């Protein structure tokens, strides 16, 4: 028989996964304007990969884990800025392939999911405490 504290594990795994997602969004936004002269070395947007945590034998309630952070392989944005000191021989600079609007949406989604998990944990905690004080 599994304990009611399994809910804490599940909600906790979701909170850490969402916080990784928030960190990557923060990193992407921070580097959104870091232009460079070489299209290969310019910053690429990072994406966390989520997966249900492996199911332990007999337990069918998986948490979530981050299997890795991958780079978005889309081509960087090419801008003609001959006055920029980072410009290459033809006057172009390369901006990271970070879509700021996409990142903001991702941030809101991650924040909401995090809040959901906090609520789940709060409810589970209240019920566990009530169960402990049963009959008093």
């Amino acid at each position, binding site marked *: *028989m*599994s304990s*009611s504290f*399994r*809910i804490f594990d*599940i*909600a906790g*795994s*979701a909170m850490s*996964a*969402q916080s990784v*997602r928030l960190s990557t969004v923060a990193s992407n936004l921070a580097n959104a304007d870091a232009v460079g002269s070489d299209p290969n070395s310019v910053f690429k947007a990072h994406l966390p990969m*989520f*997966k*249900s945590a492996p*199911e332990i*034998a*007999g*337990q*069918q*309630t*998986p*948490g*979530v884990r981050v299997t890795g952070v991958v780079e978005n392989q889309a081509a960087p944005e090419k801008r003609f800025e001959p006055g920029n000191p980072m410009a290459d021989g033809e006057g172009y600079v390369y901006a990271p392939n970070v879509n700021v609007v996409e990142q903001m949406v991702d941030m809101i*989604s*991650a924040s*909401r*999911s995090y809040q*959901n*998990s906090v*609520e*789940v944990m709060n*409810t*589970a905690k209240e*019920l566990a405490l*009530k*169960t402990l004080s*049963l*009959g008093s």
Partner: protein
Amino acid sequence: MADLDPVFGLHAQSLAVQRQRMEVLAANIANADTPHYQARDIDFSKVLAQAQGQQQAAAGGSLGLAAPSSGQAAGAAASATPETMPALSYRVPLQTSIDGNTVDEQVEQSAYADAAMHYQASLSFLSGQIKGLMTAITGQ
């Protein structure tokens, strides 16, 4: 402990089933952003019906909620043991999503609140029974 079963009735087992349901729903909410994750739920009335069927087959005793003996639920994987997951089944999605995830956060949240409320109701009943027993024991 067996002697107290008639006093507590099905609420003791109901607590266990509701807790398992909350676990499943918590997993759904945790995997709301996981691609290809399919939401699941425990049907409480199905568990009750199974328990009643077993009771009738056994012919006797008070009504209890026992976990089903075989994995008749659609979602029960091969690793499912009878004690861990009664009547687990996949949720039918209201809207399909492009990444194959079938979690609807609003549905899961309301289901979680529902399970928590039922859990609390069973707790209240149990608490009342214990208070009654204490009154009978102390005689005041």
